[in-house]
């Protein structure tokens, strides 16, 4: 089978990661923030899988499973927090929740 070269895989992963990071930095809506974090996590997972395929090791895919589980947990907790925030503040704007400033 014709393997995808590692460099192209890693480039895709880093492009994905940058898009996610950009989303985190520029979006104010907390839902979109969570989605962007998911994108960044998947970029990391992709990098693992590509590297695992390159070295012929199973570890990359195992790591991806870990990331998947962690992302699910994170979304569960994150969404709960967003709902709580919405209940209290009536908004899902991240910048509104700045009461813990120094």
């Amino acid at each position: 089978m014709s393997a995808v070269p590692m460099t192209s895989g890693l480039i895709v992963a880093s492009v994905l990661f940058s898009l996610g990071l950009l989303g985190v930095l520029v979006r104010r809506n907390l839902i979109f923030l969570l989605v962007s974090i998911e994108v960044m996590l998947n970029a990391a997972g992709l990098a693992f899988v590509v590297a695992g395929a390159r070295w012929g090791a199973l570890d990359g895919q195992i790591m991806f499973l870990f990331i998947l589980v962690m992302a699910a947990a994170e979304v569960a907790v994150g969404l709960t927090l967003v709902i709580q925030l919405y209940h209290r503040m009536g908004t899902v704007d991240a910048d509104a929740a700045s009461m813990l400033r120094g």
Partner: protein
Amino acid sequence: MPDWLWLVPAAPFAGFLVLIAGARLRRSGVAIVGAGSIAISAAVAFAIAARFTALPPDARVFTQTLWTWVRIGDFAPKVALRLDALSLVMVLVVTGVGFLIHLYSTAFMEGDEGYARFFAYMNLFVGMMLVLVLADNLLLLYLGWEGVGLCSYLLIGFWYRDPINANAGRKAFIVTRVGDTAMIIGLFLVATRLGTLDIQTLMQRAAAQWPAGSALPIAAAALLLGGAVGKSAQLPLQTWLPDAMAGPTPVSALIHAATMVTAGVYLIARTHVLFTLAPPVQLAVAIIGAATLLLAGCSALTQHDIKRVLAYSTISQIGYMFLALGVGAWSAAIFHFMTHAFFKALLFLGAGVVIAELDDEHDLFKMGGLRRELPVAFWTFLAGSASLAALPVVTAGFYSKDLILFETWSSVLGGPWLWFAGVGGALLTSVYTFRMVFLAFFGHLQRRPAGRSGWALNVPLIVLAALAIAGGFVELPSTLGGKPYFSDFLQFVLPAAVNLPARATDVVRLQVVAGVVSLAGIYLAWLLFLRRRTVLASAMRSPALRALDRFWFAGWGFDRLYDVVFVRPLVWFATVDKSDGIDRIYDGLAWSARTAWRALSHTETGRVRWYAAGITVGALVITTIVIFL
């Protein structure tokens, strides 16, 4: 029996702890604990002494190691007690006289609000003093040395509500600290050069490694002498002792007459090998002693306060001990220490009775005629004064002072000049002593005493009076039977002085001179202060004599000198330099920390996205560094 040696210092410490912790003890309980702990200590000490003297002379050494204090490589000072003839004499005097003074205090301090505090400090003092004299190494000795200094400070300022007393305590502490600093440097010197602080090993190593008269033993001995001079109130650090009379009278008797101030004498006797290796320092000891005894004698002559007379007298008598040490008559110094402890404690306790009876009147010129009113105090005070004035043959002071004068004359290290100083001091001593007796007890009755006395006040006076008379018979000179038990007892610890054979035969002539001088002094005092007081009064009209009187009254102006040379420049500098340059550095550090905090606290906005941006930038910077550098 010697295994119980630890109990001797432990009993006073236990008494101290009980008195400090048991604030609710009744007064009788405080008295029982306070005096009882010293009684236990004294009883054990005397029992040990009885067993000890039965041993053959060369077996009279006993060391009890309690525990190892610290261990730093080879340097492992132990908490160990060493009992030999020298420390036994010291222990017996400290516990014996100490017990009598505690007994006296139970009545004397009656009604004082700090009754328990007083006995706690006194017990702590006795314990520390016993540590000092029993210490097997110089580090433990230094612990006791500083401990007694602390107790001295606490007890001088015992009535701390009056700032004068607190200042006197502070002065005593600071002035002795000058000497103590020299001493601790001396300890560092011997510890680093000889690798041990254990006294016996140290003396052996010093004698083996250091040639006599070389720089190291001279430096070590001079530094130890500095400590001794401070503690024993010798020139030039004598200024604290007269002010130390601000404390209660039993404190003056115990600490500033009988025991603590003689710690310097003990230190020099204990390390006499070092001083033998350093002839210039030993000469300095003799000269300091001779000068101090003359200066303090003159000052004692002019004081009005009975306790200050006794304080200057103490300085002067310790001068005699230093003179004896300086001419190599080690055991004569210890002998004079013992007799001095008896008669000076007695004189202080007697003065305490007089002062208390006259409702806290210290001025000799406002006393008078107390002979019939206070018979016990008078007769015992007379016995103590006779002993201090070295009344020939019948008093202890005669034997010890005569021995010192004889050794000063005949020792290879002594000589006529030092002897003249000693004899001049003897004349001064008997004049100022009997001036005190005549002014306080003879003449017209000026004030009627309050009439409070009791057995606890009288018994110590009578016992000490007996000792002040009979305590000298343990060392009879060759003309009076020739039974030098005391020097024989000490000779395995302290070698005898080396005498010039040509001068050693002058015993009788010297004794006659000493006796005549003593009697002449008493006669002079009688003439000037009792019989012909008008003579003195008319002589005092001359301005030169008045100026001399004032000069001596002020202790030769030492206080003034130190005030001008040390205290005022220091105070001036401290006022001028309130915010000095070094403070600025630390102020600057604090300022920059505060500014940085203020700047950085602006970055804490509470916005999640801002933090995420911070993390991103940080990660980028670190990644860049890792990749490109």
